[in-house]
């Protein structure tokens, strides 16, 4: 929930961007990984109050040196005042270090070795990365618009990613034939339904189970062909519910999906992948109850290509913690 954190504060943004090397990670992976990065992190974290007893969380904001000294730590990501104070304290400490530990090029970083494949996720080679945003919606004068929420930040867009493997991406490439129809690969359909069509605007929800997918049918159709590009429409419907009988289902999402894709034949890649799912959502899970709107209300999910090449767009999808299930959802 970075959108309502101290990192939205203009002074902190400036400090973080100019005076530090900013890095952000998912503690679920970081505290578990058994490789050079994992060991380095534990060495730093153990200098602070978060010892991770019993494998517990080590989340917080750490300021550290490249050679592994903890300069400051707080777990107060929602307080701009505390975070600003912490960053300034760390900078003051850093300035007092000898030249041999702080000047550019002074510290030598050892070689990394082998990454822990169990807890390192990298986008599939030659696959496709899509940004996924969800938002609670409303209707005003017949037009869809953003809705209000009692939960802090609950009215803002959520963020996640969708990864497709090389084979799955290849299966999306259209034939240059007007009207040609084809379906999304089954694994992609299930991945979208179970892991993307969720309301994650008020925290981490539980993902849909395979049995919750009552309907998920997405198909593609070529709508235009030129020597340079092929335009494709994506249409479909999905019904997710924790009970077969919708009258008693405590949580559900009944939505329609529409998308417009452009495949650039010269570049051999999709240059447009815009899609929206919109429909009625109801209910919440254990950690997302606060601020949930009563009854069935409009909820939307938007898919799109990353805007620019940057590390932040290579963050793994939230559901990818269970990697095998992510790749082959039931």
């Amino acid at each position, binding site marked *: *929930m*970075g*959108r309502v954190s101290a990192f939205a504060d203009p002074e902190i*943004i400036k400090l973080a961007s100019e005076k*530090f*090397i*900013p*890095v*952000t*990670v*998912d*503690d679920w992976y*970081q505290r578990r990984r058994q490789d050079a*990065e994992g060991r380095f992190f534990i060495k730093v974290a153990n200098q602070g109050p978060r010892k991770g007893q019993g494998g517990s*969380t*080590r*989340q917080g*904001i750490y*300021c*550290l*040196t*490249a*050679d592994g000294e903890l300069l400051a730590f707080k777990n107060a990501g929602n307080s701009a005042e505390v975070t600003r104070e912490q*960053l300034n304290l*760390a900078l003051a400490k850093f300035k007092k270090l000898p030249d041999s530990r*702080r*000047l*550019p090029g002074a*510290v*030598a970083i050892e070689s990394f070795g082998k990454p822990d494949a169990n807890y390192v996720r990298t986008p599939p080679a030659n696959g496709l990365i899509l940004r996924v945003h969800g*938002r609670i*919606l409303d*209707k005003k004068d017949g037009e869809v618009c*953003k809705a209000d929420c009692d939960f802090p930040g609950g009215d*803002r*867009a*959520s*963020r*996640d*990613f969708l990864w497709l493997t090389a084979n799955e991406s290849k299966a999306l490439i259209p034939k240059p034939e007007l009207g040609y129809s084809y379906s999304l690969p089954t694994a992609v359909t299930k991945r979208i339904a179970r892991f993307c069509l969720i309301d994650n*605007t008020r925290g981490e*929800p539980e993902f849909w189970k395979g049995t919750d997918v009552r309907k998920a049918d997405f198909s593609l159709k070529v709508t235009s062909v030129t020597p340079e590009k092929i335009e494709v429409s994506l*249409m479909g419907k999905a019904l997710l519910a924790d009970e077969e009988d919708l*009258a008693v289902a405590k949580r559900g999402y*009944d939505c*329609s999906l*529409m998308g417009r894709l452009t495949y650039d034949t010269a570049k051999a890649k999709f240059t447009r992948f815009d899609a*929206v799912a*919109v429909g*009625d959502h109801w209910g919440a899970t254990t950690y997302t109850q606060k601020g949930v709107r009563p*009854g*069935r209300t*409009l909820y*939307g999910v*938007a898919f799109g290509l990353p805007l620019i090449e940057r*590390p*932040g767009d290579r*963050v*793994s999808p*939230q559901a990818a913690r269970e990697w095998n299930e992510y790749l082959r959802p039931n």
Partner: protein
Amino acid sequence: MNRLFWLSGFVTFVLMTVLPGIFQRSAIAQGDALAFPIDEAPFQKMLKEIRPKADEDTFDTIPWQISLWNARILAAKEGKPILLWEMDGHPLGCG
């Protein structure tokens, strides 16, 4: 006793049948009007409504690295300290 029995039965009947029916009708009305496909302009508007606004995700303007090891290498090269934001659920991709 007999009247109380019938009264409680009537209230239960109303709660279990009539009210959910009203609720369902009002709810279905929300999504019903969204019949896809739609033209490019309303499609773009819908995407815009859902995606983050320009001023919504300012924390994302920070040039975040996503590997602590890469951050170490950059910090050593540039002579800067590291700022590590560690959260259960990735801050850039978790809700």
